[in-house]
């Protein structure tokens, strides 16, 4: 089951990556990043079956960071939305030459 869980993790991660690449809605891109984080979590938990409790401790930290990231990220999205009235990342392309 560990192997299966790791493969699940890999596929979920790729799925999240695909989502980040093709979606334009900032919030959904964010969700896809969370999906990637979760995929990593699955891998950690699966490895913790092999190695020990440290894997789960790592997952705990990942979740903490995810919470912090969500708070700040969503605050940024809100600020951007106030400015552009949209969360479509195609519209915030000012940061280029």
């Amino acid at each position, binding site marked *: 089951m560990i192997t299966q869980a790791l493969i699940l993790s890999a596929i979920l991660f790729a799925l999240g990556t695909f989502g*980040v*690449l093709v979606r334009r809605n*900032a919030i959904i*891109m964010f969700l896809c990043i969370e999906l990637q984080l979760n995929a990593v979590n699955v891998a950690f938990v699966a490895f913790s079956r092999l190695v020990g409790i440290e894997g789960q401790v790592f997952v705990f930290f990942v979740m903490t960071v995810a919470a912090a990231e969500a708070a700040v990220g969503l605050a940024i999205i809100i600020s951007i939305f106030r400015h552009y009235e949209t969360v479509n*990342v*195609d519209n915030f*392309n000012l940061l*280029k*030459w």
Partner: protein
Amino acid sequence: MDLTLTAMLLQGGQEAAAHTGAGFMPFYPGLILLLPLAGFLLNGWLALKHAGRAARVTRVGGTYDLDGGGRPATHTLPTWIGPGVMGLAFVLTLVNFVGMLGAGLHDPVVIHYWTWMATGTFTVDAAIQLDQLSMVMMMVVTGVGFLIHLFSVGYMKDDPGYPRYFAYLNLFVFFMLVLVMGASYPLMFVGWEGVGLCSYLLIGFWFTDREKSDAGKKAFIVNRIGDVGFLLAIFVLYRTFGTLDFAPIMGGAADTLVYGGGLVTLVTLFFLLAAAGKSAQIPLYVWLPDAMAGPTPVSALIHAATMVTAGVYLVARSSVLFALSPVGSAAVAGIGVLTALFAATIALKQNDIKKVLAYSTVSQLGYMFLGVGVGAYAAGVFHLMTHAFFKALLFLGSGAVIHAMHEAYHATHRHDDPQDMRNMGGLKAYMPITWITMWVATLAISGIWPFAGFFSKDEIIWYTAAFAGAENAPFPGLYTLYWILALAAALMTAFYMTRLMVMTFHGRNRTGEKEAGHLHEAPPIMWVPLAVLAVLSTVGGWINVPEELQASIVGLGGLLPSSEWLHHWLEPITAEAHHIQELQLGELAHSAPFGGGEVAWALISTALALAVVLATSQLLGRREVQSPDADPEPTGFAKVLANKWYVDELYDAAVVKPIQRASRFCWKVIDQGIIDGAVNAVGYLARGFGWFGSLFQTGTVNTYAFVLSLGVLVILGAVFF
């Protein structure tokens, strides 16, 4: 200057003396340095305080508030401070000199005050060295300096920059004392640079005059060329000895360096470059005639008596090194004798009284170089000393003349050149004291017995001859040539000096009727120094009468005192060098290259010089001197001489213009073209890369994420496959 430094300088030299074990107890030697410095600070403060008023007086005219003596009130304090500190310093020096005289000091006394800089293994102490050489120099600097300060009180009394003048003058004396008293090359270099600075400041003292400030710059820049040599020599010395203090270098040079080796030759040639710059020798002499732009007492003090002799002092100080390097010594002597002859030729046809004296100075400095170049270090220093007396006297005398001419022209609002001898003539009637004292100096510089110049110059010439005939003389033919040239230059000296005297003081008065009424003798504050110097110019040579001469008719059968006193006095300094010389060259010759002993040649030279003086005065006295307007342009060789061999023009064409062109090339082609071009090219390159990179910067997050993922994929693929 902080208080600790002051306190340290004020402490006596007893501790240091205790180390050397000699009986000599230095008496507040730090104070000798400190007094001129204090004078500088006080006068400088006064100068700044009065700068505004001085500037206004200079710009819009008007007068100062006058004190009780009819002088501007701003002049009162500097009048006392400037010469005062010098007098005190001279007294102190005299006390120390007497102390040293009585103690029979052998090893130099080095007094450490504090560590100036310490980096790694390199340490330089702020230390002064008291020995026979530095004592002679100190005596000259403070003594002649004091007299010139006194003279300046009269000469500069109407100048609005009076306090500033004395500030500079005091500062110069301070640096000159640092130069001669410093116990290591770096300290000497401090003094070296300091006097250069003061020279620049004083040459350009009347800086509102473009020509004069340019002259200052010229002196400064030409001196820099020499300073490079000094620095390089210091580097090489440090590399070789690991220290820069005089004592260990002089003591260890004979063991460390190979006689005639490349290293010591390199050092001596570098030192020669430095000395040539400071002492106005070929090829760097060109600044000194221009330096006459400064006030005449400055010319007397800096550009005749003291600073320009620093090169001679340097060679004498480094006598061991030069003794170890026959090539270096030969170069020094060659440069010296060539300069002596060359400058003398130029002096033949100059009409500006100060220019004549300037070239004369260059010429006499050449003699000194010749002296130290042939190993007669004592003779070089001897001539340095006597030259300080009579050349200072000449300059001060010319200063008195110029002063009188200037006042006469000023009174009649005439704008002719008060320095042109063609405007003078017949001044002996108006200023007899100046006339007499200047004749004394002229006879002295011409080498007429029994004046000071005779003994010193004759000794140099004789040593050249003796050196040429030494057992193992390195370049006997060359030294013989030097001897002949030196003789020739001596004769020319007699000629141009007599010409100067005749044109200035004899013949018909050419100042004009009205102006003649305003001509007058200099005030006592000015002629007293002249008189003192005249006495010194007369008797100054008697301290070092060679034994052979003393016994002969020249010495009046032993009537003249102190047989070779200076020689013996400087023996502790020159012993090592003489030892090396004796070891390498063997016995010096006792007769000149073409026969004849010392006494014979002394008689011959003084007779010849006397003949030249008499002939010149007779011939020139009869010829009518034209005023500048009427004077025809010289032609032929005379024109070449009058134009100073076109050396300035040559330098301009050979050095200045090419440098200018090279600089322009560096600026336009190398800097703007290549370097800036390279920088710009880098910029364009970066812009190009940036443009290329910006193609990936769409501003859309997805693109970045895609590139990132692709990169991750590539790396993963590279790692796993």
